[in-house]
C-alpha cells in the first residue's frame, strides 16, 4: 500500500513537470518548424504543425539577400573579443585570490560595487566616452564596456584562491617568471572554472544586444541580435523568415548548452550561491 502511494506521488510530479516542460519548450519547437515553411504556409488558418513542403528558402534568403552572413561574422568577432575579456577577468581574479598587496580590500569592494550599477545609468555617458574615443561604429566600441564583469572576477578569485601557494612558491624557486606561472601553471589548473566561464562568456557575447544596438549605426557592424530586431521591423508579416532568423540565433546556443549543460549546472551549484 505504501509503495503505491509513493508511486502515485511521483507520477503526479512527473505529469506536472511534463505540462510545464511543454509550456517551456513549445515556442522553440514552433519556431523551428515554422522556419522550414513557405511564408504563405506560416500564416495558414488553421496552421499546420509540420511543414507541408519543407523548404530552406528562408535561410537562403537571410544569407543571400539579407546581410546575415555579415551579422554572423560580427557576432563571432564579438564573442572572440569577449574571450579576451575573460582572460582579463581571470588575471584580476588571480591577483585578488593569490597576492597580498596594499589596497587589496578597497579595490575588491570597488570591483564588487560595480555590479550594482544599472546599465541605463551608464549607457548615455559611456556612449559619450566612446564617442570621444572615436569608437562609435567599431567592434571595439561594441565590446569594451562589457569586457570586464565583476561577478566573473569574483568567481575566478574564489577558485584560484583555493590553489595551494606551495605550487607557485616551488615554481618561483625554480626561477619561473610571474607570467609564466600564471599562463603555464595557474591557467591549466583552472580548467574547470575556465570551462564554465568560457561557456557563459560565449552565451553572453552571442546574446549581447543593447551595446551593438547603440554603438553600431552602420549595417556593416550589426550583430545577429541587432540584425534580427531590424528584420522583424522590416518584414512584419513574413513570420517564416522571422522564425528562420530567430532559429539561427537560438539553435547554436541550444546545441552548445546541451553539450555543456552538466558543467554549467555543476558550476552553478558549486560556485556558492546557497
Amino acid at each position, binding site marked *: 500500500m505504501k509503495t503505491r502511494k509513493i508511486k502515485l506521488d511521483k507520477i503526479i510530479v512527473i505529469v506536472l513537470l511534463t505540462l510545464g*516542460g511543454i509550456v517551456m519548450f*513549445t515556442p522553440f519547437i514552433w519556431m523551428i518548424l515554422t522556419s522550414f515553411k513557405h511564408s504563405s504556409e506560416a500564416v*495558414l488558418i488553421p496552421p499546420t504543425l509540420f511543414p507541408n513542403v519543407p523548404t530552406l528558402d528562408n535561410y537562403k534568403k537571410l544569407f543571400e539577400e539579407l546581410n546575415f552572413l555579415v551579422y554572423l561574422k560580427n557576432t563571432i568577432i564579438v564573442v572572440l573579443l569577449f574571450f579576451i575579456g575573460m582572460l582579463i577577468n581571470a588575471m584580476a581574479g588571480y591577483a585578488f585570490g593569490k597576492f597580498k598587496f596594499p589596497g587589496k580590500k578597497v579595490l575588491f569592494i570597488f570591483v564588487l560595487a560595480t555590479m550594482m550599477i*544599472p546599465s541605463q*545609468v551608464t549607457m*548615455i555617458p559611456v556612449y559619450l566616452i566612446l564617442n570621444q574615443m572615436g569608437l562609435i561604429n567599431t567592434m571595439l566600441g561594441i565590446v569594451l564596456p562589457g569586457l570586464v564583469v565583476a561577478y566573473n572576477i569574483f568567481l575566478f578569485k574564489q577558485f584560484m584562491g583555493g590553489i595551494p601557494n606551495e605550487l607557485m612558491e616551488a615554481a618561483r624557486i625554480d626561477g619561473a617568471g610571474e607570467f609564466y606561472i600564471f599562463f603555464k601553471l595557474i591557467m591549466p589548473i583552472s580548467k574547470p572554472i575556465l570551462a564554465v566561464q568560457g561557456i557563459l562568456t560565449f552565451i553572453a557575447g552571442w546574446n549581447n544586444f543593447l551595446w551593438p544596438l547603440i554603438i553600431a549605426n552602420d549595417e556593416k557592424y550589426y550583430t545577429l*541580435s541587432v540584425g534580427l530586431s531590424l528584420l522583424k521591423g522590416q518584414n512584419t508579416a513574413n513570420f517564416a523568415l*522571422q522564425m528562420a532568423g530567430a532559429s539561427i540565433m*537560438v539553435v547554436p546556443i541550444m546545441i552548445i548548452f546541451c553539450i555543456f549543460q552538466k558543467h554549467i*549546472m555543476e558550476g552553478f551549484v558549486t560556485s556558492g550561491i546557497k
Partner: protein
Amino acid sequence: MKNLVRNLNKYKYPYIFLAPAIIVLLIFSIVPIFLSVGISFTDMNIKGLANFNNIDFIGISNYIELFQDKDFTQAILNTVFYVVVGVPFVVLLSLTAALLINYGTSKIFSFFRVVYYAPAVTNIVAVAVVWGFLYNTNYGLLNTILNGVGIDGLRWLQDPLLAKVSLVILAVWRAIGLNMLIFLAALKGIPKSYYEAAKIDGAKKFQCLRYITLPQLRFSTFFVTITTLIGWIQFFEEPMIMTEGGPLGQTNSMALFIYQNGFKQSQFGYAAAGSFILFLIIIIVTLIQFRMNKENVWE
C-alpha cells in the same frame, strides 16, 4: 618616496594583473556614474555632442520637466505594474519548479532541469520575435489554440492592459530557469538529517515542506526576490522589441523611456535625469528589502 618605489616594485605583479580590469571598470562603470549626474543638469543634445560649447547648465529643469511629462509618469506606472505582477510569479513558479525537480534523482528529473533552464540561455531578441509570432492575433499559435476550444482570440499585444500581461508572461517564462537553479542549489544544501529527524517524529510530507524546506530557503528566496526585483525595474528588451512601448505608451517602461529619449531623440540631458531617477528607485528598493529582511535572513 624611496619606500613607495620599493613598495610598488615589491607589489608590481598583482597590480599588473589587476590593471586592465580596474582601468576598464573605472572608465565604463565608475566615471560614467559621475558624468551621468553632471549631464542630467544640462540641456545636452545632438548639438552638444558635436560641440561641447553648445551645452548649457540648466539646474534641475530636466527633473522638473520629467515629473510633468505624462509619458514618464506612465512609464513609471507601467514599471510598477511589471514589478508587482511579475516578481511574485517568478519567485513562485521557479520555487515550484525547483521543488518538483528536486523530488527525484532519476535521469528524467535532470532532463527537466535542462528543459526549464533552456529559455534562460537563449537570446532575448530571438525569443521576443518568436513570442511576437505566438501572440499574433490572426496567425498566432495561442489564438489558434483558444479558437480550437471555442474561445474568441485575444488581442495579445494590442489591448492596452493585456499587452502588459503578455510581456510579463514572456519575461516570466524566461526568468524561471535561472532562479530555479538558485533554489535547486539551496535545496541540495539542506542537511538530510533534518528530514530524517522529522520522519521519526511522524511529520507528513507537507509538514516537512512547511517547517523545514521553506524556512531553510529563506536566504535564497530573499536573493531571488531582490535580483528579480532589480531586473524588472530595468525591464527593457521585451517592450522594445515586441510593442515599442505601445499601444499608446501602455507598455513603455522606464528603461525604454530613457533609451528612446537618449538615443532616438538625442536628448542626453533629459534621458540622464530619467536614468538617475531609475537609479535612485533601485537603491531605495534595495535598501528597503535589506532592512525588511535584516532580522530573519542574516541570523
